[in-house]
């Protein structure tokens, strides 16, 4: 018997054997990839709720997944289930309702929503002065099990765990816009430790509500280019004016490379490196010297045990905010040097918007597909290049190119930065 495959630190190699995705571009990997490589945008005018008085009226909402309740937790769960089903089916692992490993899920922070709040308030005894006192009074009498469960933070993961039969207590994680990558980090660590031979990593976020839009608007984070929704997300452009909020989900089945091979699974790619670094500068801005973002990229490359020159494509965080894209370009140059200018880099967010909690997982899935298909999705809406960002952003059109070592970046509010190196199957 040959020696088990280990990485440069003598750890088990982590294989990806199943992927699934839902975005505003469609449901499933095939539809998404076709749209993404055709340069289509999933951004559109919001019709889920009235947009009067909103500064931003566009988003990449997912409106085609049927659910009973139209709340963020219900929608998040429904898209997460679709992506997970696709990934597990592709991996051909376990049996229905019996996934042989733990679940790590990136979810948005959810809470009771306005329609519900209003219903409670309106049913209340008006003699109670305080609005929350009134709602509590009604709440005590109605004892609404689904409303209670679905506004617990454990709801989405609990439901996924029950449905797909993952093992142990599921872990829900949030690191803001890095959450999807963090969920994958947790899975990678569990397999490297030998805790499990398989892990299910999911990122799901369908939390676009009027209040969410207003909150991000108040932080001046959103694009206000409402006129032509498809053109609003403009990463790396000189006229970029913020991100476009969006929804979606992705799931990845991670496995110990050896046990995956032994069961005859098709290995799609390898998670070669995972690295993080937290920022201590500001709640919504990165350290001006880029040291935290640089640290996250460096830690990831070091964890992967590769030379910076081995990276042949970068799946950018590329939100399209003035701050992020500048910081990301500067930090990449600090780590990769002048050579960065010849490494293709593109932002999926130019087409699908910023899927927030799900972004790291969705973009990991698209990175894997970039390797498998030999085609790099473009950065669209690059009509006005930012002269201070000297990168090959794969403008307008997808590009045929064999890639085998991809850096995928995710940076979150709250200073939480997490990156991945995804590599082609070694055999």
């Amino acid at each position, binding site marked *: 018997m040959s020696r088990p495959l280990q990485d440069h630190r003598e750890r088990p190699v982590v294989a990806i054997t199943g992927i699934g995705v839902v975005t505003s571009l469609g449901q499933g990997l095939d539809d998404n990839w076709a749209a993404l490589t055709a340069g289509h945008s999933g951004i559109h005018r919001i019709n889920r*709720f*009235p947009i*009067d*008085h909103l*500064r931003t009226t566009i988003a990449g909402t997912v409106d085609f997944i049927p659910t009973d309740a139209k709340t963020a937790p219900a929608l998040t769960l429904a898209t997460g289930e679709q992506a997970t089903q696709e990934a597990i089916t592709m991996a051909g692992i376990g049996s229905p309702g019996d996934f042989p490993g733990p679940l790590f899920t990136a979810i948005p*922070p959810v*809470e*009771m929503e306005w329609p519900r709040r*209003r219903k409670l308030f*309106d049913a209340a005894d008006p003699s109670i002065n*305080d*609005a*929350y006192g009134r*709602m*509590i009074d009604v*709440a*005590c009498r109605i*004892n609404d099990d689904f*409303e209670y469960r679905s*506004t*617990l*933070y*454990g709801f989405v993961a*609990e439901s996924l*765990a*029950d449905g797909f039969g993952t093992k*142990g*207590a*599921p*872990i*829900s*994680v*949030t*690191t*803001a816009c890095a959450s999807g990558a*963090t969920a994958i980090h*947790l899975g990678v*660590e*569990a397999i*490297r*430790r*030998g805790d499990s031979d398989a892990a299910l990593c999911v990122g799901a976020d369908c939390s676009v509500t*009027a*209040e969410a839009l*207003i*909150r991000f*608007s*108040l*932080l001046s984070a959103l694009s206000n280019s409402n006129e032509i929704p498809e053109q609003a997300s403009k990463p790396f452009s000189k006229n970029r004016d913020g991100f476009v909020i969006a929804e979606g989900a992705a799931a990845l089945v991670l496995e110990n490379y050896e046990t995956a091979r032994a069961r005859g699974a098709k290995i799609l790619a390898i998670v070669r490196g995972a690295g*993080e*670094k*937290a920022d*201590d500068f*500001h*709640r919504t801005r990165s350290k001006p010297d880029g040291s935290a973002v640089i640290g996250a990229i460096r830690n990831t490359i070091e964890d992967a045990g590769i030379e910076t020159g081995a990276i042949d494509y970068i799946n950018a965080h590329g939100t399209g905010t003035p701050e992020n894209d500048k910081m990301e370009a500067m930090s990449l140059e600090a780590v990769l040097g002048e050579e960065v200018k010849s490494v293709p880099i593109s932002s999926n967010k130019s087409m699908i918007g910023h899927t927030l909690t799900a972004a790291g997982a969705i973009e990991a899935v698209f990175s894997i597909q970039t390797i498998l298909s030999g085609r790099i999705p473009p950065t669209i809406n690059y009509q006005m290049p930012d002269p201070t960002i000297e990168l090959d952003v794969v403008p307008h059109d997808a590009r045929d190119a064999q890639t085998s070592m991809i850096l995928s970046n995710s940076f*979150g*509010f*709250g*200073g*939480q930065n997490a990156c991945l190196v995804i590599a082609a199957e070694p055999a």
Partner: protein
Amino acid sequence: MAREAWITGIGITSSLGEGVEAHWSAMAEAAQPRPNVDLLSAAPFAFHPMVPLDLDKQIPRRADQRQMEFWQRLGTYTAGLALADAGLVGDLDRLGQTHIVVAAGAGERDTAADGEILEGLGAAAAPDNFLNERLGSDLRPTLFLAQLPNLLAGNISIVHKVTGSSRTFLGEEISGVSAVEVVWRRIRAGQGDIFLVGGASVAGRKDMILQRAIGGTLWSGAPISVWERPDKGGGTVLGSLGAFLVIESRDHAESRGRRPYARIGSVVSDQSRRRPGEVAKNLAHQFDDMTAEAKDQPVAVLSGTTGMSDATQEERDLLAALVKEGRVSAVRASANMIGSGIEATFPGLIGLGALALSKRKFFMPADESGFEQSLSAAPERIAATTCGIWRGEGMGLIEAVD
């Protein structure tokens, strides 16, 4: 050979006071421990209110304090206590390598703004438009950041310069178990040397009470012992709690000359669907697993039981049987003294347990039902249990270090 995980710093704040000594004095040295309960502010629901904190001591910049709501200030403050206790304050090199894992709950809403909007909605001709307009004008930008659960960890990085990495777990009580469990597993496997882990929960907040009330999970009226609540309908009394731990590999601690409160023997978690008997089954299995190596040495139990009927009943019956078998020496429920701290419960139990191991004494009974018996022998091992109000069952074993 797995590496040992040592608890070298404890920060704890609750209705009983601030810091380990205040808790020791209230829970172990008082002849008749008395909880601090607020019966009026959120009546009919009682809760254990946070003692006043001099925030400037741990969050010196007022600008930082203004960027947080109280749950984040409480967590950031308590994290500072843990870092100080571990001797890490100002040690920028080590803080830069320290990983944060926070177990967080829902952030705070502006209940006054919500109330005004709700009043107006009824009279508005176009309620949805009215809602958009008022949210745009009434919400403070900083409030969003105060609502994001990951911003407690973000604030800890900013205020205390802890920047190795930063993760936030969600999912009520079990997220606190998972946070400590992942830290323990990572240290054992060499996936990190030093961690800051914990959570913070503020009781008495009306937005949180609303969420719990809608599930019918709250105890109404003056609290009675959690062990007696299953017979009387069950229910939780929330308690404000900040609990943070510095946990590091033995090598890392020794290299900087630190001694531990205790070491972590094991942390395990699971999630049943709460069919009858499943809580007891999971806890029994976990207890057997973690005590397998020294079965004949009794373990003291610090329980995080919440007072919900079925789960508390099953845990009580299991622990009673283990006491009878001589495998458990004594039981204490933290909720009787500090209430239920949701995500912070398990880190709090591990901190309190480690404190008791280092003091070579167990806490006083605080239970009029008589289920909690006195213990004169010094505990060598303590098991901490945490079963969520809704879901999740977890347990940790901590051991005295000679």
